[in-house]
């Protein structure tokens, strides 16, 4: 049974310095508020994991929370590059950022293996690319029936996965819908999980396209209305496209970024 707790308490209890942390989401339902709380609480040396690290990862990296990034596509969706991510990789600012890089198919299957309690997953992927040279987590595997060589990827098991969803009930059953990406797998692959939700309701009315995570498979739920802003929560809010475009300018310059962080994250409360 998931605990219902305030966001600050959940982050304090579940996210530790040095942890492997996945804040998942595929453009939709990005857990921005939880990411900001991680920044506010000054977590350090995190291994950040995500298929599509975007603006919240740019912020976490720029704020100095991360030592390592495991990912498959890092960008500002619909806008362009992540300047804090690039600055960290190209100029080690505010510190060096180690990368482990995959394809989407590989990352998705690494979560699937983690969620399935298996040490690896098999796919047709990476073959002929330069990606396998740079990580030990991609290896060939032979089919025991046909002898064919396929690709194995190592299971991904975050210490903690954080996602945002539309709703939960008081037992911590979580309901999300729309584009739900790899969130179920990321939660089930993790040792601990935190779900921020738009609202906690008495009963979860079924919705087409819903994914429901039973409360007994989730560690903690925090009610954070608007917790996905500037991304969106289908049925609750629309994407703040202006924010994503404005981020390009804010994030290009270190001082402008620090000022933004100071004003919009550090000085804001846990509901920002």
């Amino acid at each position, binding site marked *: 049974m998931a605990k219902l707790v305030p966001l600050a308490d959940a982050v304090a209890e579940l996210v530790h310095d040095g942890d492997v942390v996945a804040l998942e989401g*595929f453009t939709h339902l990005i857990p921005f508020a939880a990411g900001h709380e991680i920044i506010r609480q000054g977590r350090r040396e995190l291994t950040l994991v995500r298929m599509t690290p975007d603006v919240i990862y740019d912020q976490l990296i720029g704020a100095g929370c991360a030592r390592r990034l495991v990912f498959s596509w890092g960008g500002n969706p619909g806008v362009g*590059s992540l300047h804090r991510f690039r600055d960290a990789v190209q100029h080690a600012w505010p510190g060096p950022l180690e990368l482990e890089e995959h394809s989407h198919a590989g990352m998705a299957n690494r979560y*699937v293996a983690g969620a399935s309690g298996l040490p690896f997953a098999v796919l047709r992927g990476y073959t*002929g*690319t330069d990606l396998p040279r*740079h990580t030990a987590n991609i290896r060939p595997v032979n089919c025991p029936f046909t002898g064919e060589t396929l690709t194995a990827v190592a299971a991904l098991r975050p210490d903690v996965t954080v996602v945002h969803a539309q709703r939960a009930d008081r037992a911590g059953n979580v309901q999300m819908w729309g*584009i*739900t*990406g790899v969130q*179920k797998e990321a939660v089930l692959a993790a040792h601990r999980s935190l779900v921020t939700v738009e609202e906690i309701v008495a009963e979860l009315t079924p919705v087409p396209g819903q994914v429901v995570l039973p409360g007994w498979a989730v560690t903690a739920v925090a009610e954070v209305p608007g917790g996905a802003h500037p991304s969106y929560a289908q049925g609750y809010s629309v994407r703040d496209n202006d924010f994503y475009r404005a981020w390009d300018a804010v994030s290009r310059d270190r001082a402008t970024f620090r000022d933004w962080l100071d004003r919009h994250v550090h000085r804001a409360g846990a509901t920002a």
Partner: protein
Amino acid sequence: MSGPHPPADWTADEMMTVAAARQLRDGTACFVGIGLPSTAANLARVTHAPNLVLVYESGCLGAKPDRLPLSIGDGILADTADAVVSVPEVFNYWLQPGRIDVGFLGAAQLDRYGNLNTTVVGGDYTTPAVRLPGAGGAPEIAASCGEVVVIVRQNLRTFTARVDFVTSVGYGAGPGDRQRLGLRGGGPRLVITDLGVLEPDPVSCELTLTRLHPGVTREQARAATGWDLAVAESLTTGDPPTAHELAVLRALQATTDGSRR
């Protein structure tokens, strides 16, 4: 920039997008990256290919947006899709088995065999001059789709003799390489740029300039290519955008710009 000087009533990017859209056949399934591929695919769907099935890596199968999606995870894709599936499912059940006819990709660099780089440019891998977004879905799209269409602006930065990183395999080092690697999809069938169209030579697999956009010369195309560009004997010049194509494209972009507010 070494791009062409377009006639006043359409831009080189519009020509490129229209040329790409024309290549998508009605009734096929197309795995669409965001940006230029998405624009071209939606233009095709609204013009000559109403039954083009658009598959987005966010899990939206058969999306039918009435404006251009602002990202791969735009809600309009889920709202209009025939089915929304998980990201593992879209790669494992839909892309990997070869169900998708056309993979539609962009790139930061491309070489004469259609190998694509979207990872790093310059320096070495750990300390690159430019860090790009990375692979995303591209390696497996390039491997598994029936064929690949690449849309990329043509200049000396993008058309390089050797890509700094092979993110997605085209024809590898030449004929037979895809088979040797066990890649099941057919590989790049077309590369569409702001200057013209390139196709792989059936024997050598080398990308060959087969068509120029109106107003572009073969010399401009060769000057924008970082290797000695092969030119087809039968080099033709494509048709300019029709008034209808331009009107639809601009209307799509206008509704998109409107929805950004």
